[in-house]
């Protein structure tokens, strides 16, 4: 009995659990805030660090690509489109579901996952 109530009183005097990312209060414009962080005007509370092997934005190295089309075949979301003329691919970030299957299948490691996850945007490109 009263476990939760005791816990509430304890929590009242403890630090909050919330990670105050990117700042304590939500800024008026998030992208404006991020730009001012880049310029070094304001400080950002860092996000929770991602573990190794995190599946973030996928990096495409055009030079290494041999145009084998394996990634096109396994991609569940049509995020990888094959360009017939160049024998290369185009990677659409906004369609990507970040499963990392194309990275696993790529024979030349032209596709690599990165740790980036702050990818939300208004523009589709």
């Amino acid at each position: 009995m009263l476990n939760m109530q005791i816990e509430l009183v304890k929590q009242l005097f403890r630090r909050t659990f919330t990670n105050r990312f990117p700042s304590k209060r939500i800024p008026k414009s998030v992208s404006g805030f991020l730009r001012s962080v880049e310029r070094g005007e304001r400080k950002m509370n860092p996000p929770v660090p991602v573990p190794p092997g995190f599946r973030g934005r996928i990096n495409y190295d055009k030079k290494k690509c041999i145009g084998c089309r394996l990634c096109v075949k396994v991609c569940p979301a049509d995020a990888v489109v094959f360009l017939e003329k160049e024998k290369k691919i185009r990677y659409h970030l906004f369609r990507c579901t970040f499963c990392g299957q194309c990275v696993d299948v790529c024979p030349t490691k032209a596709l690599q996952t990165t740790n980036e996850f702050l990818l939300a945007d208004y523009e589709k490109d």
Partner: protein
Amino acid sequence: MRKAGDIIGQESRDTYSICVGPVHPALKEPVRLNLRVRGERIEHVDFELSQVHRGIEWMGTRRNPIQILYLSERICGICNICHTFAFCRAVESIAGIEVPPRARYIRTIVAELERIHSHILWAGVAAHELGFDSAMHYAFRAREKVLDVIENLTGNRIMKAIMMIGGVRRDMDKGQARLVMEAADFYSRCSRKLEKIFLGDPVIKSRTRDTGILTRHDCLALCSVGPTARASGVRKDVRQDEPYGAYPDVGVKAMTPDEITGETRGDVYDRIAVRLREIKQSADIIGRCVKDMPEGKIAHEDKANVLLGELRGVQGEGIGRHEAPRGEVFHYVKLVGEEAPYSWKVRAPTYNNLLSWIPMMLGAQIADIPVIAASIDPCMSCTNRAVVTGPGRRQVLGQDMLHDLSVKRTRELRRGLRP
């Protein structure tokens, strides 16, 4: 087309109808409940499904099995391993692929981590439905750790994408094994603490005891599955009845409320008890799996293109079952030697459990609707698949219509109009 008034039954002077949903704060996903109420007491219940039909099965028949893996994850956000697990088992049974022991253990660990995460999330939602937001925030905070472990293990917090036909995609190293062990210990303790908070709270007890009773008889008649069935005293668990993965080595026993509270009433309180105790059960399973983890390969075939080629060569039908946090999930797949499967049918546990809303809600109060609705842990997007839409019409496929359509289709086939 039926009108809402027809379903609810006879209008009378001292009863009135309330419509809960498709958009309502008590519902996390769209479903519509039509209720006939006298004062605060519910006299008639009906519900309408299919507000979130997405045509996933149809999409599946235009993709190769590896693409379907990720599609099946998107059937349900919370239980994304379950659908993939069941789909993999279905395809493996067709192709006769033997899953290496280490992969089976990793699959089991991830599936159980997911069960912990899902049950704690559910506990939070149930607390919110009872108007107890403090307990909700406590539960959600407790859930963070398992998400961190899942992220470390699979590379993402919710969408795990670790399953592969014939194995898993990522191995578990020593450091990760230690993390998982720590999490298992943490959740053994956490389950006890949550039990104290939820089962020991006098107000929660008074709100949930003898609320939404599903008798053993009703439960068997309506084919309820998962914790909903177990809380009514039916010892039903795919992990126990037809063990797969690492479950045969671990030995799972279905959890019923008489082991926790000493009696089985089949009410909301029992369902809370069963789910919270299953967190501990899952933590124990994870501990065993990490300890007994065999060495060896983690996948039947590493190269996705080779695997796809192999699957293109097989024909046949297969089923895959898995005990999801909500109950048994069932996948049927038919391969005909082509890239994409000929047929893919998913039956999610909520489909079985939904009907049990009716005996639960009859005679309850309006105040009990949210918690009863939440007590089966419904997942609408898992369930909604049979909708026909077209310009100017929107129908739910009922039994009659399905029958008519089947007859029509059979005639067409006989006449040889369609292949």
